[in-house]
């Protein structure tokens, strides 16, 4: 690694020394409205000199002595030639807009840039500034609400955690359903390192948290199968193409510095009752504890006596007035978090070579005390085109990420949020703040509830650490064999070193001996590909842009996992200090070979046809059955070029695309039966023992599942391109989904994986952009996007109709797939009802738990984003609102809050009970008074009462920035300075869930819609300074 960096550095120095010769000129390229034209290319006619304009349309370049002619071009504008006289050093050029052409060029599969108008499928785009405007540390989360059809949610685990990005709905019951990420043409790993499940755990992050948003130039989202077909078996969930920032040729040396500080404040949404203390009623009489042990056993159970201010026993053992102390427990326990990030980028280049080198540093202190995250990024892009024939592009990134004490979620052990959520109102959480007993173990405040950990002990003890070091590199060589024929070779690597340590500290009450687990692993993917392409006219009015290519993908994963128990010397946390329990070798290796082609035909710049095909061969499949073909076809017709349209309509296009892609390639070694020591035990009575490995029958015929999408789209612009719209309809069908099918136990196994499932997603996406006001000093632009995705599980297998994705920890609700229902239904208990649907009471007047019913869907089918950007002179204001509708969430916080007598509702009936009338199972009338304790506890058994509409509208982000005027800066070394203030989650405009944020999923798995004792919502305020030298 060091050697590679050193070599790259040397190459860089050599290229720098080549800069500057002849004479310098500077200039600006503007459009008809006097706004700078970005990325216009300037070439000296007949000479190998060139440059590109910056974001303000400015350029600086060297030209040969004497009079020269410059050709200035930019997509969307008419190319213009300008003569520069011998003595001219400054020029100004106005480019006329080319109404024939939309400005956009988009990045498509394998990094191929295409004119947007030629595409027969939808591609979502996001520019780098969109990502950095609001300073999201996590790149995945930065996509939220920005692109129609891209549904982003994040577990409530903070910025170092993972994000769930699902494009046009989940395609598979067993797959991850997240898109493939491709950075500068190289597929990268986005493995989830670990998630909270039914039994808790920490969100250990995913592959996307590695990236520094400041290094991203743009993102393209290939949503449908037609767009992603060239990625074959990896295209089922769409592809996100990321292009990193590059240097610009002929611009000399530029320095960009950006620094951001953000404060993250916890927002308490808990609104528990503050009138009743701890304890369960005895014979109907509310209690007040005089025995500390009993009080501690009931620390979360607020069915006790009414607060009256008289001296009583408190949880810390002292005697205090009997009253509520816990209103601000959330605020008092969590802290104000703080993120600090800096990026320094140096870029430049001469006529043939450019580079960009950036250093990024991020430090994040979570609102969870003791939890922090740090990231360092080094990124280098080095590009050279020494002559017209050859161009070379290289990119390298080195990233190190370090996390300490990622918070535990859902289940209670080590989860500081659990007691913080459920302490009875009579306890101030700070009384627990000495979390350690005299021996250094966990202080006992919770009595018999040993699996509930003192939050101060949890956050002040070492619980987990992880370190990820990652190198992502790519090199591309393009060689123009003739003017029309080119060849290209690309090689890329994503190499990850990961180490994870998980500790149960000495003295933790549920396992005082402690435990230690360490996992060290390496994960490498290498892709090498070659292309041969043709670009040019093949007949009059008929253009062809086509290539054939081959790719070899090689993956290797190797690691070791060690676990030990009972620290021999307490508080010394390393493996050698434990009684070793289990050591496990982790390994897999696989390869995929591919051949592919792509052909784009264009007729007269208004009718386009695109065909692609890819054949994949998999090493992990049976050799007799190891190949699949993935085709696509799409077409685009710009009818506004052919038909006379009314004047208010500037542009009209219709498109259609179909493609067939795959997903969830079976793992290595799943074909053959293997043998291993049973339960890790290698001998009995001195004789070695060996058993059949696993309970799943290896299925030799298993293949990746199949997704085909058909889509139609309509793109229009109106009023001289002031208003643009894009409307898409799609139908995406998964077939041969891989189902973990249960088989008869008498077969000797429990399950087999078979290609039988079918899932349908269909929906509509709509986006509109309006340049509402466009004047030299004031601009207002509006963007709105909307997506609706309706999913249906058509079938799981011929034998099963329901498959549980995950159960709630208390086994009171679950997220399932059910035939005929949308993907990810929340199942919860209804009231016990009679045949007429009337609620049945027990003879004591309590509710009873009835059938499991479908209580909602975990993923919102409808999502939208609404942005407004205002600029007045040097001020810019951006306001971003997003919303989701139609989803639900099962809130165990509310269910337990009711069961534990914490919910405000449970105050009702505490004095005198609640009168109920109804009938029992036998139809006999029940007219009685039920105590609040019995009433609310039986109400809490009916868990469908706690499945809430998770609809929300949020003022997600506001940013306000100021660009210092050039006139102020002319005497300083600065080219530009801007200062921006941004805020996140300022206001939840609309939501219906009590006590928690509607976006409180604890995991990013397919089982969306489960919440339990979540960390609070955070509100962020940040200040960003950008300086350019």
């Amino acid at each position, binding site marked *: 690694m060091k050697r590679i960096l050193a070599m790259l550095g040397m190459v860089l120095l050599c290229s720098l020394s080549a800069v500057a010769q002849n004479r310098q000129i500077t200039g600006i390229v503007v459009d008809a409205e006097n706004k700078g034209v970005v990325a216009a290319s300037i070439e000296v006619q007949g000479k190998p000199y060139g440059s590109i304009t910056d974001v303000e349309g400015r350029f600086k370049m060297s030209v040969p002595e004497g009079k020269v002619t410059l050709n200035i071009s930019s997509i969307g504008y008419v190319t213009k030639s300008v003569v520069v006289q011998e003595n001219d050093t400054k020029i100004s050029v106005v480019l006329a807009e080319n109404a024939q052409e939309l400005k956009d060029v988009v990045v498509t599969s394998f990094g191929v840039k295409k004119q947007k108008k030629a595409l027969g499928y939808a591609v979502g785009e996001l520019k780098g500034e969109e990502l950095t405007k609001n300073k999201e540390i996590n790149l995945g989360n930065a996509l939220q609400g920005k692109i129609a059809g891209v549904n982003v949610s994040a577990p409530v685990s903070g910025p170092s955690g993972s994000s769930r990005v699902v494009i046009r709905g989940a395609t598979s019951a067993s797959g991850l359903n997240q898109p493939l990420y491709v950075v500068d043409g190289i597929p990268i790993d986005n493995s989830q390192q670990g998630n909270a499940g039914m039994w808790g755990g920490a969100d250990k992050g995913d592959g996307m948290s590695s990236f520094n948003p400041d290094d991203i130039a743009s993102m393209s989202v290939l949503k449908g199968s037609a767009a992603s077909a060239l990625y074959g078996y990896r295209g089922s969930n769409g592809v996100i193409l990321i292009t990193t920032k590059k240097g610009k040729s002929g611009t000399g040396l530029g320095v960009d510095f950006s620094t951001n500080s953000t404060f993250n404040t916890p927002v308490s949404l808990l609104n528990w009752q503050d009138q009743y203390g701890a304890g369960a009623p005895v014979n109907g009489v509310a209690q007040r504890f005089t025995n500390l042990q009993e009080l501690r056993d009931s620390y979360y159970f607020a069915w006790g006596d009414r607060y009256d201010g008289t001296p009583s026993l408190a949880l810390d053992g002292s005697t205090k007035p009997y009253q509520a102390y816990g209103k601000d427990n959330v605020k008092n326990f969590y802290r104000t978090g703080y993120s600090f990030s800096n990026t320094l980028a140096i870029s430049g280049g001469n006529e043939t070579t450019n580079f960009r080198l950036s250093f990024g540093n991020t430090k994040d202190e979570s609102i969870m005390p003791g939890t922090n995250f740090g990231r360092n990024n080094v990124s280098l892009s080095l590009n050279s085109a020494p002559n017209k024939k050859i161009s070379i592009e290289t990119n390298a990134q080195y990233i190190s990420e370090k996390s300490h004490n990622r918070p535990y979620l859902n289940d209670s052990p080590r989860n500081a949020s659990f007691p913080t959520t459920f302490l009875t109102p009579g306890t101030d959480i700070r009384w627990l703040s000495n979390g350690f007993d005299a021996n250094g173990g966990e202080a006992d405040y919770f009595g018999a509830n040993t699996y509930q950990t003192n939050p101060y002990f949890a956050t002040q003890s070492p619980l987990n650490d992880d370190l990820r070091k990652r190198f992502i590199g790519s090199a591309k*060589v393009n*060689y123009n*064999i003739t003017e029309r024929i080119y*060849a290209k*070779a690309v*090689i890329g690597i994503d190499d990850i070193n990961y180490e994870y340590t998980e500790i149960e500290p000495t003295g933790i009450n549920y396992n005082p001996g402690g435990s230690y687990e360490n996992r060290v692993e390496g994960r490498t993917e290498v*892709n*090498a590909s*070659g292309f041969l392409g043709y670009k040019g006219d093949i007949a009059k009015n008929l253009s062809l842009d086509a290539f054939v290519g*081959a790719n*070899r993908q*090689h993956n290797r994963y190797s690691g070791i996992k060690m676990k030990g128990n009972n620290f021999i010397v307490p508080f010394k946390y390393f493996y050698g200090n434990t009684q070793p329990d289990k050591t496990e*070798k982790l*390994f*897999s*290796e*696989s*390869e995929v*070979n591919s051949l592919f082609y792509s052909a784009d035909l264009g007729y007269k710049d208004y009718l386009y046809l695109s065909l692609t095909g890819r054949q994949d*061969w998999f*090493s*992990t499949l049976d*050799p007799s059955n190891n190949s699949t073909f993935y085709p696509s076809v799409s077409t685009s017709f710009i009818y506004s070029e052919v038909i006379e349209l009314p004047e208010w309509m500037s542009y009209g296009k219709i498109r259609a695309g179909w493609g067939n892609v795959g997903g969830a390639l079976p793992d*290595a*070694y799943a*074909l*053959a*039966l*293997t*043998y*291993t020591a*049973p*339960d890790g*035990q290698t*001998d*009995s*009575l*001195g*004789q*070695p*023992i*060996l*058993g*059949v*490995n696993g*309970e799943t*029958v*290896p299925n030799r015929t298993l293949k990746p599942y199949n997704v085909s999408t058909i889509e139609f789209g309509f793109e229009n612009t109106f009023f001289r391109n002031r208003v643009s719209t894009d409307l898409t309809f799609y139908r995406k069908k998964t077939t041969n989904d891989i189902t973990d099918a*249960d*088989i*008869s*136990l*008498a*077969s*000797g*196994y*429990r399950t*087999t994986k078979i290609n039988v499932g079918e899932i349908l997603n269909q929906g509509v996406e709509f986006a509109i952009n309006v340049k509402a006001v466009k004047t030299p000093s004031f601009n207002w632009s509006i963007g709105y996007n909307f997506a609706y995705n309706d999913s249906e599980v058509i079938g799981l297998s011929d*034998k*099963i109709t329901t498959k549980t994705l995950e159960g709630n920890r208390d086994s009171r609700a679950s997220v399932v797939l059910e035939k005929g229902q949308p993907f990810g239904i929340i199942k919860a208990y209804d009231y016990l009802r009679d045949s007429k649907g009337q609620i049945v009471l027990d003879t004591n007047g309590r509710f009873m738990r009835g059938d499991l019913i479908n209580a909602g869907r975990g993923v919102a089918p409808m999502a939208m984003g609404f942005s407004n950007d205002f600029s007045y002179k040097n001020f810019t204001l951006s306001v971003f609102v997003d919303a989701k509708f139609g989803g639900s969430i099962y809130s165990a916080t509310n269910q337990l809050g009711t069961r534990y007598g914490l919910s405000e509702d449970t105050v009702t009936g505490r004095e005198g009970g609640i009168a109920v009338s109804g009938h029992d199972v036998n139809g006999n009338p029940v007219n009685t008074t039920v105590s609040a304790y019995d009433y609310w506890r039986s109400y809490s058994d009916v868990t469908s009462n706690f499945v809430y509409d998770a609809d929300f509208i949020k003022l997600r982000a506001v940013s306000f920035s100021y660009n210092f005027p050039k006139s102020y800066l002319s005497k300083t070394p600065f080219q530009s300075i801007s200062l921006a203030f941004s805020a996140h989650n300022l206001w939840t405009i609309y939501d219906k869930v009590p006590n928690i944020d509607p976006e409180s999923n604890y995991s990013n798995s397919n089982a969306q819609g489960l919440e339990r004792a979540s960390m609070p919502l955070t509100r962020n305020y940040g200040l960003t300074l950008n300086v350019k030298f």
Partner: protein
Amino acid sequence: MKNKFIKIFCIAIVGAITLTSCDKGFEDMNTNPNALTDPAVKSMFTLAEIYVDGQDFSNTRGNNIYAAQIVQQFSSLSGAGSKYTYSSEYSGALFGESYGKGLNQIFQLLSVVKDTPENSNMIQACRIMKVFMFQKLTDTYGDVPYFEAAKGYNGNVFAPKYDTQEAIYNDLLKELDEAGDALDASKAFVGNADLYYQSDIPQWKKLANSLMLRVAMRLSKVNPAKAKQYVEKAFAKGVFASNDDSLVLQHDAGPQGVKTNPITSSWVRNDLFGGEANTKFSKTFIDQLKNNNDPRLRIYAKLEATGDNNPANQQGLANDAKEFPGGDKKLFSDPNTSTVLRLDAPTLIMSYAEVEFILAEAAVKGWNVGASAQKHYEDGVKAAMQVLTIFGDKVPAVSLAEYNTYMTAHPFKATGTEAQKIEQIITQKWIVLLFNGFEAFSEYRRTGYPVLVPVNDPLGETKGTIPRRLIYDQSELITNAVNYKEAISRQGLDLMTTRIWWDKQ
């Protein structure tokens, strides 16, 4: 010039692609370098032997909670076996574990060694071991998958057909007969990898024949002629003749799991550490031993609270009890943790005593088994007392004098009715089958002995009668519905009261 560039380019591409591939071929890459694809067959055989008598899962749920409580060896307050209630997870435990562990291991091993003549003895041993497991399965549930069973991998049979118990029994007898004959002392076996008999082939032959006695005698109600034929045949071929022949599986003391005593493992986990099972010795069992001054009681039982193993102080829990009389469960008897309830206590898979009791019964029926019923009975009781030395010497062994005293006090009722004799024999067998509740349950159903007072609990599913079988694992309704329903339509509803084929009224 152009051509040269193309050449260089092609070389570069090929080079790049070659660089990324390793030495392994594309197809060879899919062989897991960290697991065995060619198993060490001896080690598989050793594990198969351990699996034959079941693991913790089936012994806890199937034996300790169901079978052993139904025959009133054990008892617990809410035990499904004591109260005849239905618990799907307990009732199906033997079904899932037998096929998933032992039978799958045996059939996979057979598929690996099937064409290797040098493993002939191993193949015969596997056929014998398979009979142990299938007999227990079919005796417990009735018709079960047999001919298509455990073929999930070898044959991709994911929903095997259920076979009639009669067809299964015919094949079990055939397998024992053939395998016993095919065992060949002149051929290699597995040495000490055979935990049962250290590869002593004559011992294995005796095992096959002794097991044939067990299988054949089970047909005494439904097909007495066939029972007689095979009992006499087995006896003639040679059966266990002393406690040295008994099939005893030794266990390690830990770590708890695969190789520890499966009865103990579950007891330690569920009971002794304050779990909910609260399984105790049944009052029926303790009283039987206590009232007859049985010297075995001090070895079998002790009080949980004090560890006191004084027979006079032992107290069993009545199977119909809804709470512990006196309120303290610790004053009731557990299996003795210094003898039978150790993690490394051996398992008595098939005892010489059992063989003698089968022969005694055969003699009562007038079949040709060498000696008189009395001789077989007395040898059986003596062997049943003396075999307890396998549980160590922490508690004094039963002396010959104690045996004589016992036999004098409870002589064989040589002049009694056939029913009285059989009651006496089977009651003794019931004692030696402690920890093998499944076999005791089968023998109870076949003979009606020992005489048990049924429990009539309001939650019971049998209207106060002793169950005649256990209910299939309910996953079969989903994963093997067609074959399951076919079996039910043939055999009768999937209830605890349905009688299986050999359990003729």
